[in-house]
């Protein structure tokens, strides 16, 4: 993958160790997921050149950023960086902060212009304010616009929502989804939130104790029963689907994916629109025959691929194939035993609820 990002880094500080050897795609959003202290921020800082792992190697699209004694300082790397907490220059207005980036932007390639960045992040009405006069969420939106205006070839985001409360997160996530949809800009997105990862990621890297435990396409990686980070109630998969029908009477929309279709509450998406649907393992129950006498709308024929014990006592995780798409169900071990579930067995997956997350 010479056109992607390659990072081979080792760091050892008292009480902390980082040892990674990663190939990442230089397209879409790569979510770097792990609990705090897992080394994900250190990895990002090394890629940015803000931290230096002696003897490490960082390459981006064939360009060497660090190799042997060669070390490109941060200000010469074509990156944008969004920090976890507000990082706006306090002495400059929102506009001043954006101008700081525009004056230093890479002019060698087509750039996002001020109007585009301002509209993408919805910050036009905030431009004349000082950072001290903005809310946490507004500051972070300005910081994201500023990182875009430097015209980066790679955007690094270090838990941009972690310092915000739930309401503010909800306020910013749609803007991040805009970025993902509208800019052909590779993004490395560090997060410890399963929800953010499910909403934004295309590729998933799971980290713990300074090491990479899994790396792969989001859907595939999340459906692995041996996914190394226990998600508990958040266990579930993400399915890319297309809106293929809308039922005005019942206010429902049909989202088709490889191997089947789900009916969802109509959230106003147009026919043909791509959506991302999250199906949590705890919302799927299994039956051996099809029941039409329940309130459950989505009942899909599936085949058992694999069964594993869940971290929680008494529960099992079952990986299912619905056509070409993998789902994960979480049920009691007793149910798994009574249904005599085994790889290859045909079952009906009853899906209690599905959420469109994009």
């Amino acid at each position: 993958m010479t056109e992607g990002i390659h990072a081979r880094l080792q760091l050892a500080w008292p009480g902390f160790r980082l040892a990674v050897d990663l190939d990442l795609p230089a397209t879409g959003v790569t979510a770097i997921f792990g609990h705090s202290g897992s080394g994900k921020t250190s990895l990002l800082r090394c890629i940015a050149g803000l931290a230096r792992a002696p003897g490490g190697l960082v390459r981006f699209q064939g360009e060497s950023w660090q190799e042997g004694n060669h070390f490109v300082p941060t200000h010469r790397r074509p990156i944008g960086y969004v920090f976890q907490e507000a990082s706006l220059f306090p002495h400059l207005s929102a506009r001043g902060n954006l101008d700081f980036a525009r004056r230093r932007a890479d002019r060698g390639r087509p750039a996002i212009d001020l109007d585009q960045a301002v509209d993408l992040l919805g910050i036009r009405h905030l431009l004349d304010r000082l950072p001290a006069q903005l809310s946490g969420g507004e500051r972070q939106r300005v910081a994201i616009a500023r990182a875009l205006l430097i015209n980066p070839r790679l955007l690094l985001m270090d838990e941009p929502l972690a310092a915000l409360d739930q309401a503010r997160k909800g306020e910013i996530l749609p803007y991040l989804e805009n970025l993902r949809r509208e800019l052909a800009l590779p993004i490395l997105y560090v997060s410890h939130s399963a929800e953010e990862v499910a909403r934004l990621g295309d590729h998933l890297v799971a980290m713990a104790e300074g090491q990479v435990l899994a790396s792969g396409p989001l859907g595939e990686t999340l459906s692995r029963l041996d996914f190394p980070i226990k998600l508990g109630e958040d266990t579930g998969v993400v399915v890319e689907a297309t809106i293929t029908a809308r039922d005005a009477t019942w206010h429902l929309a049909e989202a088709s994916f490889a191997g089947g279709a789900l009916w969802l509450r109509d959230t106003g998406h147009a026919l043909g629109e791509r959506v991302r649907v999250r199906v949590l393992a705890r919302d799927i129950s299994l039956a051996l025959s099809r029941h039409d006498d329940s309130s459950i709308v989505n009942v899909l024929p599936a085949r058992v691929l694999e069964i594993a014990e869940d971290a929680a006592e008494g529960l099992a995780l079952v990986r299912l194939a619905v056509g070409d798409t993998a789902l994960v169900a979480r049920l009691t071990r007793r149910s798994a035993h009574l249904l005599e579930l085994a790889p290859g067995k045909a079952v009906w997956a009853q899906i209690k609820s599905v959420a469109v997350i994009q």
Partner: protein
Amino acid sequence: MSGALLHWQAIWLTLKLAAVTTAVLLVLATPLAWWLARTSSRLKQPVAALCALPLVLPPTVLGFYLLVLMGPQGPVGQFTQWLGIGTLPFTFTGLVVASTIYSLPFALQPLQTAFEGLGERPLEVAATLRAGPWDRAVHVVLPLARNGILSAAVLAFAHTIGEFGVVLMIGGNIPGATQVLSVAIFNHVEAMEYIEAHWLAGGMVVFSFLVLLALYAFNQRGARIGVGTGGAGHD
């Protein structure tokens, strides 16, 4: 020469000395404070202690050593003579050198506090926005440390205006050349000219009060808009 002319000469000389000293100190103390704020070198504590010495030493001790060093037999004196500029004691340049050393801690401390208060983050942010080291210093560090720099300048200026012992030791008392206000006041008191002493001394009290008032008011405003303030050296 009339008394009034002497007064104006002393006032002018004092202001000139304070202005030149402040300018020299800002140039020298800024990099030094930056180094002290960010280094983890083992030299940090000794250097910091050395720079703080003028705070605790009697001005006469400082003046005495400066006189010895810069005098005809001292190493600095030998060097300046070799350069062909003679010796520094009893000249305006000598006063500037002495004042710079004497007021150094007053410039250094607010600068160092301001730089330490900045933290690593603004510099990292600037680096991710393509700002190189000089760009960062000029467009991020200096504006963010603005209040610290202002405090340093005001304190260095005011402290130089108030110095007495060091000047007397190495500057002597030459009207028009090295006789500054504080020395002029001393002369008036010695000569029992209390009215003249009152005018000059009272003027200095008012001046010093106004300078400090302006400084505190400015720092207060800086704190309100959230720009990092470098507190005054001893507040």
